[in-house]
């Protein structure tokens, strides 16, 4: 799990806004990743320092051709729809939030958790 830091103007916000910020930040991080991969891919081989950096992750390989970055507006809209369909849930300070327009207060040391839930049944 990679922590994603989101900058907010205020400690008060809505679930809708929080999801939007999180998606934007996630895609920005991906963009950095994509350009780094593109370098390696265009050169066709790895440099010694890239090998050292990859070794720590447990695998050394020439990355596959990087994918195009997704469209941010579309990705945000899809995340909002997914939240409304309960594809994932959001926990803030030990409480599950229900609605997109719900107002939430964020405090330091209380991370927001995004979870994909799985429907369960007795076996």
């Amino acid at each position: 799990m990679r922590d994603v830091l989101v900058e907010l103007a205020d400690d008060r916000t809505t679930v809708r806004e929080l999801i939007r910020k999180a998606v934007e930040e996630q895609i920005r991080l991906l963009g950095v990743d994509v350009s780094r991969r593109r370098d390696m891919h265009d050169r066709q081989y790895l440099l010694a320092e890239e090998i050292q950096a990859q070794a720590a992750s447990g695998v050394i390989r020439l990355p596959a051709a990087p994918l195009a970055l997704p469209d941010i507006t579309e990705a945000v809209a899809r995340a909002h729809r997914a939240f409304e369909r309960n594809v994932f849930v959001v926990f803030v300070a030990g409480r599950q939030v229900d609605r997109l327009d719900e107002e939430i207060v964020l405090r330091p040391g209380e991370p927001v958790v995004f979870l994909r839930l799985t429907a369960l049944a007795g076996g």
Partner: protein
Amino acid sequence: MVDVPDMYVDAVRDERDALWRLVDEAKGLAKAGDLAGMRSLAEEVRRRLGAGDSLERTGGHLGSNVGDISAALDDVYDEAFPVRRPDDPADVLDAPWPTVRRTAVLASAVDHVGWPTPPLEPLAERAIAANDVRLLRLLVLTPLGRAGRDTVVRVLDALHAAGALDVEVIEQAFADDEYLGRALGGTSRTDGAVTSAPATCAAVVRDYFDELAWRLTSPPEPNWDDLPEVLVPRGLRFILRALDRPHDRRMADRFGPAELTEDERSALVEHLRDRTAEERRYAFELRLPAGDAEVLLPVLGLSGAAPLLRLVRATATTEVARQERAAILAAARQAGDDGTRRLLELCPSELIAAALGWNRAAVEKRVKHNALSGIAAFGLLPLADGETVLDRYLALREVAKRGPKLGPNRRHSHTAAVAVALDHLAQVAGFPDAGRLEWDCEARIAAEPPGDWHVGDYTVGVRLCDADPVVAVSKAGRMLKSVPAAVRNDPRYPHTREHQERLRDQARRMRTGMIERLVAAGGTLTPDELLRLRRLPSGQAMLPALIWQDRSGTVGLLDQIDLDGPVTAAHPHLLYERRLLAHWQAEIVRRRIRQPVKQAFRELYLLTPAERDAVDVSRRFAGHTVDGKVAAQLLSGRGWSTHRQYHEHQATRPVTAGITAALACELHGYLGAGDAVVGELRFLAADSVVPLAEVPPVAFSEVMRDLDLVVSVAGTESHGYASPPHAVSRAQLLATLIDDLGLARVTVDGTSAVVRGYRATYRVHLNSGSIHVEPGSHLCVVPASFGGTAHRSLFLPFADEDRMTSVILSKVLLLNEDEKITDPTILAQLDRGAQLS
């Protein structure tokens, strides 16, 4: 009468007449007020209907032609047994005949109006929860409604717990369902493997069954029709009875595998001491399916044949699989020539007989018919007089060529059988592995290529173009782009084409069979072997494109190193350790070398910090859901065996002498059917788990590369972007996460989450997801739908990286609000747990 074929008309009419007579009888009994008589008459009618509807009697045409009869019976029984209290389920069920009116009352009681036979499950749940003995008994005895096999067993369990399970109930349960035994002993429906603990009533029911089996099969003639199926009786007496009727196949099948205690087993051995040899042999045959035939070997004078018998059993249960020739020969030596012969008469084994060279003609015939185990056995035959290894090799290549004509699935197993046969032949010929055998043989095949020839102004020959053989035609020193008609029509042309095909075939086998294996294992070639391979045109084209290490440790291309000693194909791990990997990657690009297989750019896997911490288990790919069929194919193509029968590891691959990679998978069924969730990976030595850091790094890297391939190709979850490898174990990750959620009722204790719910306290194991309800029961909760998840890639920092994490977290959240659970099967489990404690 509707739709009755002529041949059954008379029988149906007779049966109907007989049933009408029973209706009249019922009317008489009703008039006399004889309710007990009416109960047994209802039984009689049911029997009559069942027998009359059988295939032999009316071809199943009676059932659809008794509407008027059952209507008449309904009238009689409704009048004599009216429903007095429609809201009391026991009163509704307590009747000898399932009239339409009574069935309708039942249907509305269980909220299933409109079904011809209402399900009894809701009433069963109620009766079990309330421990209502009368209702429990009626649920089994009633002719109304229908209860599933598992429900019936749970009802029997509840009656047993209440001390109220009697013969009448058991008899009725078996009369309704002769396969009830399947749900009793905890054997699965499909393959007979034990899947769960036996029902608590099993002991009592089996006592009943044993008595019944004994009674029904007493002399003179056994009555098999009334004996319920599935169940295996217990006790020596059944085997002795089967021994008394040596030609009764049915008795051999049902009683031969009877369960024996240790004492009974010794008693059987004693019993056989003063019996005829024929009887001893028959006893052995009876006990083969039970798995304890080995104890009878001494009385058969075959004491030394135990290892051989184990091999026979092992080769009989697996599909076509590699056998250890040395082990077979050693076991046969121990059994002695005569002992081996006699044992193989008792339990024949094609493979073992082949290894000993006893069934050559039969095996050759089976190969002709493409029998898979026959092909595998063919490789094990010792060389005949005048036969060379090359002869056998060419014969197997011919067999292999027939594969593609056999259809897509069969083709796969055919190829696998040939591979096993080649491995066997390598053992016979004394090669270290099949690869070396193949290349030794290939070198001999290509030893003498036909030379160039001329027609008119043209020169024709086979040339290699980047390891790819082409037919080259030149005129006055200039290569032509196409083959002129004059050349094509020359009688020598087909030979040249044939040679091209042979070389092309060989190039393909060189790449995938030899070089891929050599690079993947970081294998070594002696100067002799290298020389022989370089004599092959494809070897000459491919081997110089690889990076090698010579005996002094110099790394380079073939022309840069010392070839007088052994040379090792450099695995990328070697290059990485020597800090040469970046250099060689750049060098291969700069020199524009096309490597025949991935070497410098082969993906290299190293231990992660988490794997170092976990010491002997890797969870790097754990939690990925894969398509089981694709995964099984990929794995088997890369040397993994996929097992159906082992509980701990579903796929294994021997990686070095003495070390086997073992992968656990969570399956539905077996690997190859449905989805599977990749689990933990371990490396096993003879009887211990090898710490990851002690696994040879090349072997480790290749195993991880196999698994990465499997999760990326067979994976069913769309990741979009590669997710980072699991940095910490799942338990640690979940523990942190549960802390982050700040749930008031949940605390983390080591690798468990303790949920203080409203109904109970639960302990959820964070690695496996299993749930214990304190103090001592188990709760089974599974994903409602297994397999493909619908989420398209959402760009959010999800805390649950994989499906398993999501499932475990969902369990914790479910139990955290256990007062809101509505799923009846979960509630029933909790209620039972509460009663036990």
